């Protein structure tokens, strides 16, 4: 019985050390990501005027984004494994195509997972993502 109690003490220590180690590792990764994940905003702006989607549509798109896209593009869409999605310089049709078809070896297809209506909400959310700071011009 004594051996089991000693083992319990050591096991509790091992759990605490392992958890602390992983949380420390997580902190290091967060600090590194904070320093490197934000891309520089571009000077270009989307030229075509389009009516702004309703806030509830954007919110619904944001929820879909968190469930389907955030683990690769980051919860703030600033990019993780996938790229930063702020100020996308491409057409709506191209964005929808990418969501539906993905990229071989890089991004899965979401055509079966999301209906056209849901993809439209995702698009509305992506279009709402703007760089907050003014563009940086190196010239």
């Amino acid at each position, binding site marked *: 019985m004594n051996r*089991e109690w000693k083992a319990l003490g050591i096991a509790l220590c091992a759990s605490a050390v392992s958890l602390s180690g992983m949380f420390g590792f997580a902190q290091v990764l967060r600090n590194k990501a904070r320093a490197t994940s934000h891309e520089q905003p571009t000077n270009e702006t989307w030229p075509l005027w389009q009516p702004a989607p309703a806030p509830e549509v954007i919110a619904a798109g944001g*929820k879909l984004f968190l469930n389907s896209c955030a683990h690769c593009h980051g919860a703030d869409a600033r990019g993780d494994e996938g790229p930063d999605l702020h100020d996308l310089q491409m057409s709506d049709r191209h964005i929808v195509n990418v969501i539906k078809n993905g990229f071989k070896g890089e991004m899965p297809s979401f055509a079966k997972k999301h209906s056209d209506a849901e993809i439209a909400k995702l698009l509305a959310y992506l279009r709402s993502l703007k760089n907050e700071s003014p563009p940086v011009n190196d010239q």
Partner: protein
Amino acid sequence: MDIPWAKIHGAATHLPLALAGCSWLFDAAGFALARRSTGPQLNVVGYWTMLLAGLGTFPAVASGLLLTKGEVLGRDLVLFHHLFVWPAFALLVGLATWRAIVGATAAPRVFGYYLAVGFIAAVLVAGAGYWGGEMLLAN
């Protein structure tokens, strides 16, 4: 080169996921058949599968942290996933450490407690796996 952490995490997590449940089943069967010759043999299988499950939690959790750039809790499905992951990780490391010290078998009453905690750990690991799958498959 971009490392496919999503795929590595998916591959790494299935080892502790499967082994934790298997270990508990073998140990429970060994406990129930303790008076027969097969009982201790089943406990030996439970012992080694628990050690492997404990070791397997480290690459599983580390690859998840690398995938999310150090996200410990997150939001929505990621949060649900993490609410199961951290207690499961701590319990599996503790159980594996305890078992490594005590050995394949222990006094019946103590081993009963071990099985009760092991069951909780197996359920938590399964819960973490379920929410991990939901992130990939569910809307």
